[in-house]
């Protein structure tokens, strides 16, 4: 059990909806971006003079650009359907972590400045002027939303708090109050090509080391190619796959799959990052700039296909937004979807019988699967709706003999966020992250008790990092988190492909 200065929620026999604890997380806020982080993205370096007016003007600008924002701010009837659906509320009891209350922080200003009722009768309709106290609440509580969209599943109007928190963060950047974690990382991607700031030579070195490791473990020359012009596939993994456990075992799994498939593939040192944190700050132009880097790498390396690694929000940006931001991808092979997820790629091989998998290799594990929020509620895999739930499970079941799902209302479209998504995976938010993980950990706890589950597989770099960090707070070992392609990689029988 890690040391804490806060109370870790207790695991019980089932998840309870907490009593309201107003102000419980009022002090939670991530570090603010320093002037240099802001400057690198072209944002004001510090709180601008006249920020109230600038913020309202920016809100007006966004209302004209995003239908979701306009419709979602108008439509809420305060029915309460979302109030017990957010993992941060369930873990903290802070009522401002109920999705509708979080939205209301922005909606109150919208009503004050953009609706007749709010201009004439502010008290009646909950309209508020933006002042310093409200600005602090914006910064605190819009950084207690992981943009996981669980609330939007249950809202009768499809109101998506992710859209609201993205808009709020964009306004905050516009007035000079950025978040350090996200903005620093986005600048690194622009400058170096990945979130870690890992330069090309270091990347090449890492990949060579991996080739040696795999050779030592299997006796087979599995390649990890970098910047190979004319390769068939450009693989864009999250950069965590290059260094951290269990991510790196996933990368080894991808490499083994490509090796067995006989597909020539490559990584790019120019675009070595699937993650696109610009989505978290709601900034279209920044998100586009990051996406264009990948397009450029694909053109330069003359590849025919782009495959994306295990990363949740990255798959949302790639699947849902790349075609818009950086398309059309008419220079790629039209026989394959652009982009493809590595899970789709591997699934096709398994279905065609092109991979030999020894499930016994994973017999020491009883496995469950965590549906990542962005994959579950913002993307698809394969041709059918819901394929994002079917395909990863198919891979796991093809690689393992012992698989158990967690409770039905905690998986699939109702999956709980890991608690670290949406740009919140930073140390100073550890209390929020630990408490926000409660609903998922509770469900994991139940299958551990009931079925003796030992490992939880994930397909997202943020989920894997978050779980390895927070599970020990609940007394669950950090190495019970595995990559989906780690399981595939373990099971692949190398060198037996026909």
């Amino acid at each position: 059990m890690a040391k804490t200065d806060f109370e870790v929620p207790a695991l019980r026999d089932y998840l309870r909806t907490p009593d309201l604890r107003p102000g419980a997380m009022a002090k939670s806020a991530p570090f603010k971006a320093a002037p240099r982080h802001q400057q690198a993205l072209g944002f004001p370096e510090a709180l601008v003079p006249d920020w109230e007016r600038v913020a309202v003007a920016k809100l007006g600008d966004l209302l004209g650009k995003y239908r979701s924002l306009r419709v979602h701010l108008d439509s809420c009837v305060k029915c309460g359907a979302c109030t017990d659906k957010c993992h941060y509320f369930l873990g903290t009891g802070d009522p401002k972590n109920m999705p509708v209350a979080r939205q209301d922080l922005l909606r109150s200003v919208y009503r004050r400045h953009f609706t007749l009722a709010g201009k004439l009768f502010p008290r009646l309709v909950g309209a508020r002027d933006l002042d310093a106290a409200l600005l602090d609440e914006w910064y605190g509580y819009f950084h207690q939303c992981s943009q996981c969209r669980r609330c939007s599943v249950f809202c009768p109007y499809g109101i998506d708090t992710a859209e609201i928190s993205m808009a709020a963060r964009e306004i905050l950047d516009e007035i000079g109050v950025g978040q350090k974690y996200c903005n620093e990382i986005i600048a690194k991607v622009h400058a170096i090509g990945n979130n870690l700031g890992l330069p090309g030579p270091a990347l090449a070195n890492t990949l060579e080391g991996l080739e040696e490791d795999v050779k030592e473990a299997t006796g087979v020359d599995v390649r990890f190619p970098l910047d190979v012009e004319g390769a068939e596939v450009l693989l864009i993994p999250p950069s965590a796959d290059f260094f951290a456990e269990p991510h790196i075992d996933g990368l080894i799994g991808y490499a083994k799959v490509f090796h067995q498939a006989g597909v020539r593939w490559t990584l790019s040192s120019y675009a070595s990052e699937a993650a696109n944190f610009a989505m978290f700050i709601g900034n279209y132009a920044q998100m586009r700039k990051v996406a264009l880097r990948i397009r450029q790498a694909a053109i330069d390396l003359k590849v025919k296909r782009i495959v994306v690694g295990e990363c949740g929000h990255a798959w949302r940006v790639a699947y849902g937004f790349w075609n818009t931001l950086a398309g059309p991808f008419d220079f790629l092979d039209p026989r394959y979807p652009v982009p493809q997820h590595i899970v789709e790629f591997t699934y096709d091989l398994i279905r065609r019988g092109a991979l030999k998998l020894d499930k016994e290799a994973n017999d020491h594990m009883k496995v469950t699967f965590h549906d990542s929020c962005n994959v579950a509620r913002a993307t698809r895999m394969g041709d059918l709706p819901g394929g994002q739930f079917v395909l990863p499970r198919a891979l796991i079941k093809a690689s393992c003999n012992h698989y158990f799902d967690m409770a039905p209302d905690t998986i699939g479209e109702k999956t709980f966020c890991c608690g670290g998504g949406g740009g919140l995976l930073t140390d100073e938010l550890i209390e929020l992250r630990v408490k926000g993980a409660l609903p998922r950990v509770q469900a994991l706890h139940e299958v551990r008790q009931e079925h003796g589950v030992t490992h939880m597989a994930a397909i997202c770099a943020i989920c894997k990092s978050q779980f390895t960090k927070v599970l020990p707070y609940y007394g669950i070992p950090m190495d019970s988190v595995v990559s989906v392609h780690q399981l595939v990689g373990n099971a692949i029988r190398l060198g037996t492909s026909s």
Partner: protein
Amino acid sequence: MPLLTVTYALLLYAAAGIFVVGTGWRIYGYARTPAPLKIPTTPAPVTRLGAAGRVAREVVLFESLFKSDKWTWIFAAAFHLGLLLELLRHLRYFLQPIGTWVTLVQPFGVYGGMAMLAGLAGLLGRRLLVARVRYVSGPSDYLMLLLLLATGLSGFSIELLERTDIVSFKVFVLGLEYLDWQPLPGNPLLLAHLTLVAVLLIVFPFSKLLHAPGIFFSPTRNQADDARERRHLAPWAARLERGGAGEV
């Protein structure tokens, strides 16, 4: 022409005008604002027809609310379905001749009214009793329920307490429709009912009642899940593309 009739004729015209123009203006605002990114909450239908079906299920069945909370769903369904039946039943005042189907609806209208009131009472009770919902409720949320309850109750009271001359009332309504004003019966409950209806119409475009048109424009529900197959580009995003990676 009696002052009462003139007053109510003008009030109802104004209310209808504000409702139509105000709501139309809001809908125009939704329609003209682009949705720059594909954001359907998935799993979502992969075709536009399928997405239209999803919106239809939300409108008719309250599909998402059903997933969330069964009590809220029951109360909301009772209220909305009851309201629909009542609205259909009231068509008899607006149509001449009355269509057969409007006649067929009549006997169910009363049950509709009851369901509507029961649903509203349930929603109000939930708002008061569930701490989470009470926390997010503002004065306007209670007033809206009270307004709807008062409208329904006044309508019921006419039925039970005050045998209104509905023939002359219909003459009044048709007179409004044909711009040939006829005297309005002066029953107090009827006047109260009409006033409340006028208030509802006036409030509609400025309030959360906009959820009714809003659901049709909600991108998380009305978009097809076809981002890889079709390139989706908003006009402002296209301008950004042409101008390079400039400021958005």
